[in-house]
């Protein structure tokens, strides 16, 4: 049984008011979570215009299905899943995604260290500049924590394609960060 997340009385009332279609409560809820949702949408969409469109779509879905939320598990996790699913649905509808491997790519020998000194906005922008397929798989695996199997099911492609495309994506991102922004390499963490 999922662990029940602890909510304050104020949070519970806010969610319940949103479930009852109270516009003020919905606006307050939107203000609390819009930045995080937009961040997710931007990472998948690659540009702010599309990200804002996806943000709107995600929140419409959130408020539509909020009545199904039973205060079990993390609310933020639930919201993130909806944002990810909205983004993936958009990409699947407007991008035909298929990956054909002409060769295998090995894990890059060295990867950049992306510690706190580096600008978050810069790194997110480089992710946004990745080709769509690379960006999608990188976001799903590296940031959202989905497994190769789950990603393969989501995108309707083979698991081996997911693995190789992830390696390519990681390599391309690392190369971009090194060449454009001189983010240095460090030995791979074992």
């Amino acid at each position, binding site marked *: 049984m999922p662990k029940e997340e602890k909510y304050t009385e104020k949070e519970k009332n806010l969610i319940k008011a949103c479930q009852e*279609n*109270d*516009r003020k409560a*919905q*606006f307050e809820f*939107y203000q609390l979570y*819009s*930045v995080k949702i*937009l*961040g997710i949408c*931007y*990472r998948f*969409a*690659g*540009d702010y*215009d*599309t990200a*804002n469109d996806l*943000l*709107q779509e995600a*929140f*419409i879905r959130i*408020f539509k299905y909020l009545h199904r939320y039973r205060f079990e598990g993390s609310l933020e996790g639930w919201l993130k899943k909806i944002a990810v699913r909205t983004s993936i649905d*958009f*990409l699947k509808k*407007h*991008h*035909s*995604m*298929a*990956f*054909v491997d*002409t*060769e295998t*790519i090995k894990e890059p020998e060295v990867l*950049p260290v*992306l*510690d*706190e000194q*580096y600008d*978050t*906005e810069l*790194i*997110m922008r480089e992710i946004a500049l990745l*080709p*769509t*397929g*690379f960006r999608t798989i*990188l976001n799903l695996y*590296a*940031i959202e*924590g989905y497994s190769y199997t789950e990603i393969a099911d989501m995108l*309707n492609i083979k698991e081996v394609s997911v693995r190789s495309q992830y390696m390519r994506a*990681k390599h*391309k991102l*690392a*190369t971009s960060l090194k*060449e454009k922004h001189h983010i240095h390499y460090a*030995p791979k*963490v074992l």
Partner: protein
Amino acid sequence: MPLKSFEDSLKDHAEKFSPSVTPSNWDAIANALPAEKHKKRAVWLWFSAAGIFVLIAVGIVSYQSPVKANAPAVTATNNNNSSTPNLPTNSSGSSAEQVINSTPSTTSLIQDKTPDNRPAIKPPVKIAYIPSSPQVKFTEMIDSPGNGSNALHEDALMSKESITNDTILMAETIVSTVDSPQLDTARMMTISKAEIKKNQSRHIKKHIGFEASYLYTDTRIKVNQAGVASFAGPSPLNNPNEQLRNQTDRSLPGFQIGINYCLQRKFTYIKTGLYYKNIRYDIQVYNVNLNSLTSNNRFNDFDFNKSDSFAAGNGGLVKNSFHYLNVPLEIWRETFSMNRWHFNYGGGLNANVFIGNKGVNHQASGFYVKSEKADRSVISPFHLSATAGMGVSYDAGQYYTLYIRALYTRSLAPIESSHVTTNYQNIGLCAGIKYLIK
């Protein structure tokens, strides 16, 4: 201390990332949500009224001539065309992916229009990889197949749907790098709606236009010269030695016509141009030596040399008719669009270069007076004015837009002339037409 993994560091940055949310997003979300219960009835009525209005507007618009589609239709390509460009091979020697020709069953029309309202590109369209360019371009066949006119259109966009994963590659824009030649692989580009929008947002439209305005001028005049009196003022006999200063003025309609040039990106455009502007007002400026007044309070002895005008009942006035060349720099924004109608608002600055004052002299009868032009010379050859306004525009066709606006203009600097200093403000009605160049 062990270093964080690449994935963990990416997660941390993603967690910290705080982009700015566009304020208008909430309006769009709220409009899409079900109405709150207590407002449902009123909303239903509003929607009904809006629906009737939209139907009437659509009916009116549909009654008018349709939008001219003047872009050439794209014709089919030969799917067995053997002139496929040679694609580079990668470092391992395996051949790169082939150019795939779309077929009618696997492509569909674009429903979105391109920024300049070009018609949708009909399948099949040949997609070519140009080795010399880092980008993948689309070859659009012009006129009939076989006439040799293959023009490359960078913004020729196409979307593909319902193509199986086995038959199409996802297209990426790959820039080969020295360090990773294995990435220099040819791929097809699939353009999504997002890409179309991205291209649209970068596209800048250019317009030229013609505009005419009716202006009504209101002035605030300060008299420069000392010793000016008005017979409409206090009785001069009370202060026979006092020299008073006064003036009256009356506003008259003027006009402005000219041509303009606009650069538009999405819903905002910058406008400049060249206009000819005319501002008119009457002025009565008196210069009277009170000692010369008779006991009957008649103006028998004027100091004519200094007198600019006179007034006796409905007697003559000296009219001022200033003519300027006006160069505007304005920013306008389109909003609240419905079908082809748009609401606009904006404003900006105008540079006004004085050309001349074609004042008119009147000579009243019954008085032995001399009248001269007021504002004999305008000392301010240049002044700035500011404009603000709002109005509506209508997309009459693919390239033409008509608009009508209410304008308010105010001079930012006083206009000095030999006798008076003037600050003016105009309210006006402006009508114009603009033509899309590109």
